[in-house]
């Protein structure tokens, strides 16, 4: 098997020797900026901004993708993707946010028929500007028919984006070198937005690792918080959020929350918890891979204001994820934090969007000072 992998490695290095097969990134790079085809007049923020964070599952709704839902499909049809994007756009327009923090947005991927979903959403919603940072970019992924891929994080807003940067996050260290080479390269996306009356307003989004079984998630959350802390030192104002792939801190002690979803998420014929030490665990469904994982988000809650308070975060009304449309949201993975005030009672989890993605959007209104 090792020889086989090496052979493919050499083959593709040779075939694409004049152009990188897999795009790698510097520690900090400029993000890709977008504008809508036609602009919608930016409203006066009137001292408040409505913010939304949403992992849109690359615009395929709940279709049975092989990688995350016991599905058997890799490549969707153009009609399927456009239908799903229409529903996402309708939800965005119904919520009418000023800023959206999006994760899992495709723009040049065979699995979603190469539709640039950043441009498509700009052109089919009231949003005007966007910044994009890729977390997975390759000419081809020679596995499962994935083919060409470009997927990442997006900040989308009605107001002009002055600048944006992609901040590199560490790679997983629990993979062999070949798999790691072709695997996701996650990031923090930080965009400076021209909000009237604000000199240094930033929107920041992140999508932390889902499937790592080592402490990579700790590194991702630590780096995310470090970026936010540095903005505080600089006197900046920010709203930040995303899919942190972490349960609320204290979930392991809360009577109605879990850190272990292996049995719930298992596909037919999967067997977990067979070892005497409780393993093996299903990647992405177990939240105690390292000692501090259940309390990973505590420092963020301790330092910043949030859309959904920690007390409310344990309630079923604020769960944001389930692996199957057949099961209602059963865990909270998506969060919004800010260093300014959140309007009282404005935090909301849009759980009606259960057919639109495997994540529910989370929103709130922040009060500008």
């Amino acid at each position, binding site marked *: 098997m090792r020889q086989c992998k090496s*052979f493919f490695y050499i083959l593709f290095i040779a075939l694409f020797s004049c152009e990188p097969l897999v795009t790698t990134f510097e520690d900090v790079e400029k993000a890709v900026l977008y504008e809508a085809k036609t602009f919608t007049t930016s409203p006066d923020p009137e001292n408040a901004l409505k913010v939304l964070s949403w992992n849109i599952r690359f615009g395929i709704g709940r279709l049975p993708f092989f990688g995350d839902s016991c599905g058997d499909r890799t*490549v969707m049809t153009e009609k399927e993707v456009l239908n799903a994007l229409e529903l996402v756009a309708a939800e965005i327009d119904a919520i009418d946010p000023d800023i959206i923090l999006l994760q899992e947005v495709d723009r040049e991927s065979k699995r979603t*028929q*190469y539709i640039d979903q950043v441009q498509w959403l700009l052109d089919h919603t009231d949003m005007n500007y966007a910044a994009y940072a890729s977390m997975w970019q390759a000419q081809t992924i*020679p596995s*499962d*028919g*994935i083919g060409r891929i470009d997927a990442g994080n997006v900040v989308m807003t009605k107001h002009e984006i002055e600048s944006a940067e992609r901040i590199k996050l560490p790679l997983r260290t629990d993979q062999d070198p070949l798999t790691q080479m072709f695997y996701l390269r996650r990031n923090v996306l930080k965009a400076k937005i021209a909000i009237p009356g604000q000199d240094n307003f930033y929107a920041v989004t992140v999508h932390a690792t889902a499937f790592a079984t080592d402490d990579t998630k700790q590194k991702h959350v630590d780096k995310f918080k470090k970026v936010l802390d540095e903005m505080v030192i600089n006197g900046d104002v920010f709203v930040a959020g995303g899919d942190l792939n972490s349960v609320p801190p204290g979930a392991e002690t809360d009577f109605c929350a879990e850190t272990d979803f292996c049995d719930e998420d298992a596909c037919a014929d999967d067997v977990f918890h067979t070892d005497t030490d409780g393993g093996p665990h299903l990647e992405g469904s177990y939240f105690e891979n390292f000692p501090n994982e259940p309390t990973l988000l505590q420092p963020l809650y301790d330092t910043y204001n949030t859309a959904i308070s920690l007390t409310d975060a344990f309630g079923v009304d604020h769960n944001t994820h389930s692996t199957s449309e057949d099961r209602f949201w059963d865990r909270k993975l998506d969060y919004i934090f800010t260093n300014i005030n959140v309007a009282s009672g404005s935090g909301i989890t849009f759980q009606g969007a259960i057919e639109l993605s495997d994540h529910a959007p989370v929103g709130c209104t922040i009060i500008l000072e």
Partner: protein
Amino acid sequence: MMKNILIIVFLISQIFPQGEWLPGTAHTLPQGRWEYGLFQPVRWGQSENREISFYKLTALLMPGVTIKQGWGQRSGWTISTTHALYYPTPLLKMVAKPGIGGMISPEFEIPNMVSLWNMVLASKDLDQGKIFTIKAGIALAFGGGDLAMESTIDLPLIYHRLAVYYNSWLLRFGSDVNGRLNKKWTYLVDSDLFLIPGMKGSFALEHKGMVTWEKSSRFHISMGYKMVYGQYPDGYPSENITRLHILPLLDLQWAKE
């Protein structure tokens, strides 16, 4: 392991269209001569004006045979036609799989398909030992009607050759210049144009430059480059995207009478 090696040989062999799907000049091999290369097909001079070629390593996965028939000379041009038949179904079924090496998603059915590639070649001897060749042809495919358009392999060299199974037909044009640098060294410069009307990614322009060291009449080493400027499928806001790839070439060839 062996299957993966065969896939690799198939993919690399696409760099050498002179051998597989399009012989370079209108000249046929002398009767009784065999030529074979690491990545090029086995070629056999079946008679003074007929040559037969096939890939031995991939014969089980993508059975195919090419017949080049010479038609003599017209106004100083040597005329020949090539007729190639391919059955790609076993190979495509093998790469439609989960995990590493899966170039096509296993969700897609691969039907039984064949393609027939017909070309007309005309070669003219120029001064200083150069041979100029022009060629034009059409490829037809049968049985690909049930092939999902989403199952394409959108890679240089491969996409435009397999496009015939999705589109039922394509056109191919080309020209070659073969020449000699000195007693031991020869060169080849060629270009090929694939046109697939009605399909996303509807063209590819390929250019190859090679030099060959003729150690003897029985052993050659060739090296050079292949440049592919091609259009590939894209989505909103544009239907197509063009890309340029430059690939290295290396091949070893042997011959026997």
